[in-house]
């Protein structure tokens, strides 16, 4: 009897322990990532509170939070966020549209690729910020030059991603389409588009990341509104809390918009053979 009991225990306990361990891990894993920043913030807060550091140039979390609330109360946060968002949206739309058209054409037709790709690759080698003076001369100092700069930043990852994705579509699947006598339109709609989508979504996300990068560049170089303007304003008036508050706003917006793209694409990518984390 005791033998039976022992086997049951020996059989049961490791799995139960493992499942409990799993649940514990799943709950704590995100928290684990937060541990370091929260500890550092708390430590800095403590140090400033104790008067061991002034915290004038590196404000403690409570001051940054207060600044954030204050900016939100006066409406500065909202209005500047909206301006920046509008710029990113316009630049992203422009960049994605042109990149999608040219990338699709270059991926589909070797002729177009031979014609355009070398020039585009040469342009890509230029750091995009280098265009700013020229864009300002051509398009003025207001919205057009900023939106164009963002669009240029968004263009390249999306163009490269889409062209590469179309070129690497599995020819064997294209042949299935041919064997079933799909028309050109049906071939694009039923084979190429779904095959290209995963890589395209990734390129959109990296394009959006660059869009956020370039909106900061554009706004730092000359703007009277926008989150990037808050950065410059905070620097010129010696308000580090305002700078950090704007940085935090950028982080939240960047993460949120990236998440939106991933969320919108998720229903179409459920088929992907992804390695699940758990």
């Amino acid at each position, binding site marked *: 009897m005791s033998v039976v009991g022992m086997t049951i225990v020996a059989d049961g306990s490791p799995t139960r322990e493992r499942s409990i361990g799993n649940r514990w891990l799943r709950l704590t894993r995100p928290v684990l990532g937060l541990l370091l920043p929260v500890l550092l913030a708390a430590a800095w807060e403590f140090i400033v509170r104790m008067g061991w550091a002034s915290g004038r140039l590196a404000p403690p979390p409570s001051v940054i939070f207060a600044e954030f609330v204050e900016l939100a109360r006066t409406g500065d946060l909202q209005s500047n966020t909206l301006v920046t968002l509008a710029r990113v949206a316009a630049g992203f739309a422009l960049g994605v549209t042109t990149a999608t058209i040219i990338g699709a054409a270059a991926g589909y037709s070797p002729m177009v690729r031979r014609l355009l790709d070398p020039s585009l690759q040469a342009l890509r080698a230029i750091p995009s910020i280098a265009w700013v003076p020229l864009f300002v001369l051509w398009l003025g100092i207001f919205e057009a030059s900023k939106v164009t700069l963002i669009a240029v930043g968004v263009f390249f990852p999306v163009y490269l991603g889409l062209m590469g994705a179309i070129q690497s579509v599995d020819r064997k*699947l294209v042949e*299935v389409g*041919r064997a079933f006598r799909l028309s050109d339109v049906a071939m694009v709609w039923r084979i190429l588009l779904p095959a290209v989508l995963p890589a395209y979504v990734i390129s959109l996300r990296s394009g959006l990341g660059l869009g956020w990068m370039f909106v900061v560049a554009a706004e730092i170089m000359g703007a009277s509104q926008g989150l990037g303007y808050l950065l410059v304003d905070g620097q010129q008036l010696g308000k580090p809390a305002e700078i950090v508050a704007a940085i935090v706003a950028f982080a939240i917006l960047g993460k949120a918009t990236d998440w939106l793209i991933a969320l919108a694409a998720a229903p179409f990518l459920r088929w992907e053979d992804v390695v699940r984390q758990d």
Partner: protein
Amino acid sequence: MLSLERVSKIYPNGVHALGGVSLEVELGEIVAVIGGSGCGKSTLLRAISGLDPASEGAVVLDGERITAPHEKIGIIFQEPRLLPWLKVADNVGFGLGDRPKPERAQRVTAALARVGLADKAAVWPRELSGGQAQRVAIARALVPRPEVLLLDEPFSALDAFTRSDLQDHLLDLWTDAKPTLVLVTHDVDEAIVLADRVMVMCPRPGRIFDEIDVKLPRPRDRQSAAFDFVKRRVLVALDRSLNRPATTVDGETKATAGAALWW
């Protein structure tokens, strides 16, 4: 009737893959094409399918010349080639895009039940085993009710057990509508289990070297003496097709060709 009239294929790089293959296949007949690698058997199948039309000669089906994929011709490849972004049921119905939805759904359900995968309709292809995926591919090819079904080494990527299982299953499916089957294979057993006629091809350029009738009743016993007899005939023809004299010991033909097929 499917007839090939002196079908030749010369690739743009100058490789002479097929050198005038002529063949007539009756409706409902099962023909296996066998030969060493590089003998043009896959090229021949692709020429019949219209995916890679012949450079000279003609493929004619019921009086119509085939130069592009045709609705009466279905093809099954070595890999299942299911579209990973479509559920199994949508993969099976892929060739029925122009039919009304209820008819499509009904035919897909029937086909999936017929290949024994009714419970996998709403599953992604990645969740299938190799044998299941190939069965879905067979269902997809059969659903439009082709008159001719071409099979390009359809079971060669599967393990031996699944392979013989699917060979029997294919024969079972074939009895439903009795389409013409043209099967390319390098597996002698597979050719003899399935085919009414085995065409042995030889390389450079690909030609039909010999033709062996298999007049055994179905289902065929892979272990029977008659099966073995036909198998030896095919193996001897294969040896000869590769210019390799069959060695005889005590008046018996030694079956050495099996290995040669893999070269």
